[in-house]
């Protein structure tokens, strides 16, 4: 019952929002409040739906099979993530979304997108899955429209990828339906277990490729940065945190449940050289290359969107090992990333709200003006960089351990290389935003209101709590792993049980707090300190004042730029994809030439058509 209500709610929300649209300009509060209430109700229903895990509900018959939805442990977990982040985002927009006139259908499309995502994760057959996938893709496209001008152009880029993904998936759906004779997951699983190799390979590829595109896995990641970065900032947070992960959800669902790991592992020549190896390599590339591209971004949002790609690589790394530790890490990283990226982008939004820019070359020194936003970003980047005690570390620990012990040393190395890049770029992010010299023009900047602070505080709490007590998350992960056909992780509240490795975040955090206290004691043993103006600085005897910019934020990592200049400026894959686009346009232009505009040519086509048709028919018996 709650399951259906859960799916119906956002749809109702969509319709009501369209009706309420007229009020958007005059009194945006109505729309905002409505959206928040509806999403809170949705989250409540999602929680209530917990006892219904395992039940399946059928809907209308389409093409001789009925659409069906239902919750599994995996989908409930995703539902909760979606519901949680949606509530937080819509709460954040209460304060953050100033001009609803510029984003006329912000909430409408958000509702539709939530509908698509919920439907996707709850779908229990291939057809429902595809329908919801398409609804989600289109809604995402429309959501992206609600942003800056250049964002709409970028959204069109997303659309190309999304449609390609959708059409490949459609091909896959048709192929699987044709081969297995059913849309039902159970039937497909049974069929794939003993399907011919060729059919299995084609099915798997046709289905996985769209997921990899949607998950922005290298080399199909090019659509993401521009499309996300130019959306409205709260939407950037939303898209980065959960939207991209729908591709991974599809991957988890199909690799582990629908096709089954056994069937997937038939594709390959040995235990270490199979489809999963390819996924691992792609994941490693995804983790490394975009992360290092992030280094050279000078827009805070754009920098983070590159991390959205890179961190997706970590998730895929964990999942593709298909081991207990790895999948636990991958699944957990989805949650962790969602929390801390939302936190970081909310903080950025808070800065943007006051300063009107996200340009890293123009910001600086805001720590004294917006301490809450700073703290939010600090928690977030510690999580993103994967440094204890925030939650990002725990999932990375799982992933590393699974990679090292699973015998993928170079993949593990790639993951670490990506971590180094992450640390570098997040430091640049926080340094250029909050540290360094405060430009004179931001002297009057104030902290944002409580309405916008609250989601930041909540997320800070979540990032820290789940970092110290990963067991809170791992208990669900373990359940999901059972459903995926994997030995569940032996978890404890602070980490994992001894047989799974040495990790107890509670102890690590406790020791850290104690040693931090030691540090504080040493600090306070020293003499009294005096806080000085930012112009009271060492400058080799030169005088500093507000007219002299005394800051280092432009070209922050010059050595890397020096070494990799060429690689960044003409990334081969991006060039190839651009050329593909150019090629299609060229082909289109040539095909168009078919219609010459001259009647004689047309008449010639006519006669030729008759002759060729005669010839063809003569040949066909």
């Amino acid at each position, binding site marked *: 019952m709650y399951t259906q209500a859960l799916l119906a709610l956002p749809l109702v929300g969509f319709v009501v929002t369209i009706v309420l649209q007229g009020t958007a300009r005059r009194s945006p509060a109505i729309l905002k409040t409505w959206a928040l209430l509806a999403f809170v109700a949705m989250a409540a229903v999602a929680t209530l739906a917990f006892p219904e895990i395992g039940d399946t509900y059928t809907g209308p018959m389409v093409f001789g099979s009925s659409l069906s939805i239902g919750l599994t442990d995996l989908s409930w977990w995703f539902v909760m993530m979606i519901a949680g982040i949606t509530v937080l985002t819509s709460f954040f927009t209460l304060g953050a979304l100033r001009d609803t006139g510029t984003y006329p259908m912000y909430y409408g499309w958000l509702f539709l997108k939530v509908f698509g995502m919920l439907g996707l994760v709850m779908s229990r057959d291939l057809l429902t899955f595809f329908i919801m996938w398409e*609804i989600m893709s289109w809604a995402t496209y429309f959501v992206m429209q609600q942003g800056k001008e250049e964002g709409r152009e970028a959204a069109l880029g997303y*659309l*190309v990828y999304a449609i390609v993904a959708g059409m490949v998936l459609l091909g896959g759906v*048709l192929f699987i339906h044709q081969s297995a004779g059913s849309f039902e997951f159970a039937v497909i699983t049974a069929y794939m277990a003993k399907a011919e190799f060729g059919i299995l390979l084609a099915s798997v590829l046709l289905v996985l490729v769209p997921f990899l595109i949607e998950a922005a896995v290298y080399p199909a990641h090019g659509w993401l940065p521009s499309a996300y970065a130019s959306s409205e900032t709260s939407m950037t947070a939303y898209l980065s945190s959960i939207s991209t992960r729908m591709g991974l959800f599809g991957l988890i669902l199909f690799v582990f449940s629908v096709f089954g790991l056994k069937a997937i592992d038939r594709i390959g020549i040995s235990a270490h050289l199979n489809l999963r190896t390819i996924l691992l390599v792609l994941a490693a590339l995804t983790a490394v290359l975009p992360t290092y591209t992030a280094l050279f971004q000078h827009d805070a949002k754009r920098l983070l969107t590159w991390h959205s790609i890179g961190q997706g690589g970590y998730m895929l790394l964990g999942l593709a090992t298909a081991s207990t530790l790895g999948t636990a890490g991958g699944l957990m990283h989805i949650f962790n990333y969602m929390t801390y990226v939302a936190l970081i982008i909310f903080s950025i939004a808070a800065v943007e709200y006051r300063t009107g820019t996200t340009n890293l070359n123009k910001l600086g020194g805001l720590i004294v003006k917006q301490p809450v936003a700073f703290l939010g970003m600090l928690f977030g980047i510690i999580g993103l960089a994967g440094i204890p005690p925030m939650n990002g570390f725990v999932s990375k620990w799982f992933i590393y351990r699974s990679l090292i012990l699973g015998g993928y040393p170079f993949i593990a190395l790639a993951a670490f290389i990506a971590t180094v890049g992450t640390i570098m770029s997040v430091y640049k992010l926080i340094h250029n935003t909050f540290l360094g010299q405060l430009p004179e023009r931001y002297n009057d900047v104030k902290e944002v209101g409580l309405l916008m602070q609250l989601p930041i505080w909540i997320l800070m709490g979540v990032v820290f709590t789940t970092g110290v007590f990963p067991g809170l998350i791992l208990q669900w992960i373990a359940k999901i792993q059972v459903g995926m056909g994997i030995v569940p992780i032996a978890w404890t509240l602070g980490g994992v049980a001894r047989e799974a490795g040495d990790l107890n975040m509670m102890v690590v955090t406790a020791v850290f707090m104690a040693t931090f206290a030691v540090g504080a004691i040493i600090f306070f043993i020293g003499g009294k300190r005096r806080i000085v103006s930012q112009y009271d600085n060492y400058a080799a005897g030169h005088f500093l004042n507000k007219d002299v910019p005394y800051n280092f934020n432009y070209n922050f990592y010059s050595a890397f730029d020096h070494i990799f200049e060429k690689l960044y400026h003409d990334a081969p894959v991006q060039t190839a994809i651009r050329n593909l686009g150019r090629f299609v346009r060229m082909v289109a232009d040539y095909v*168009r030439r078919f219609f010459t505009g001259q009647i004689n040519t047309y008449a010639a086509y006519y006669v030729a058509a*008759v002759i060729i*048709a005669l010839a*063809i028919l003569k040949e066909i018996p």
Partner: protein
Amino acid sequence: MVSPMLFIIAPLAAAFLMIFINRRGAALALSLLTPAGLAILGVSWLPATLVRAQPIVVASIKAPLGIPLSLDALGAGMAILVAVSSVLIVLYSSSYIHRGHHEVRYYAVVMILLTSAFGLVLTRDIFNLFVFFEILCISSYILVSWEQSGAALEASFKYMVLGSIGSTFLLVSIALAYKAAGSLAMADIAVAFDSAPRGYVIMAAVTFLFGVGVEAAIFPVNSWLPDAHSSAPSSISAILSGFVIELALVVTFRVLNTVFAAVDVLPLLQIIAIAGVLVGEFSAFGQKDLKRMLAYSSISQIGIMLFALSLGSTAGAQAGLSHLLMHAGAKSALFLIAGYFILRTGSRLIDDYTGLGYRMPVSAALFGLAALSLVGAPPLFGFFTKFQILAAAAATGGGLAWFGIASILSGTVLEAVYLFRVIRVLFAQPAERSRVEMDLPALVSVALFTALVVFGALLLPSLSSMIGPIADGLATLH
């Protein structure tokens, strides 16, 4: 029940009547009421035809001397589609077409076009088919050249030359058929062809295919279409793209499939269809002229329908006809809205519509919905029809079918991109915010077309009980 013969007589009479009265009001009333009445007539006949085709006897002369006519489920279905579409389009025209002394003639010609359209689905006589075909062509020529601009005249002329070549081939085909059968009734010809030499039947089939096919805009005799559909008044583009080419397609396919059944033309049709899909989508991709883009899209959509029909399976035929219904709604809506875009900006170029979506939000939204359906986004009607087609093709299997699926899928990618580039321009930075929404009659008309493609999926269950007998009309001649 009233005789289905009214389908042919009523619009013809209405046309002459309005020329005599020569008043705008009367012309509008007649051209709204006639198809409306015919739509009701069609609906009232539909249940009977679903059970069994209803032969129509004209002046008590039976075949072979008389002209055989028959109303089967397919005919009734197509007639309803044509009638309803034309009611809506006439409604749209009432605010769209320039008021002036030519206006009455416009409606009269539309009525004559309707006559021929109904005639084409009713007739069971191959020469009678030729006559209706010619009427259809001539009225289309006139309507295409309605605006008398250079482009309209040029388009009309090209259309006319190709149409004339088509009629030449059609007559060759008729001659061959008559020689073989000694009769013009399709049923007799079909029997005669069964025992005729294969080469002979092939010759007749191919000349017929490209003879009538020119009106159905099958590849490669579709080169008139982008010109004609883009230069005609938008209401006429909607008629031409909305039901004329579909109707011609159904007629072509039905006759080929029943009368010329002795040769298997389906593989040839599949090749033609796939080529049409690819050429249409690629040509539309780089278009800057909105209506021309939509016209190219029609080429590819016709290809998709033909592909579905030529799969040769019941599922394919049903899917193709569903898609036809969807396309009629979606493409009419798109052309009609495009008409007002042109009216409001004075330009056909997409780039000139920058920010127009803020000034015509409802129109732009409807445009988006129709485009979404055309692309096949669930849960709109277009998704289900396209999916059915692809599923039917997958069920057929074989290299050609899978190649067709791949072509349709990649065509869809292109289609989504070019259609949504338009949406993107419509909602680019707003220049001004003053509302210039469509006039009410036009808005109602477009909204109803769009409602079809939005809620069409809800029709599917009720449609599924009817679609069987309707699709049966493609395979057997009643």
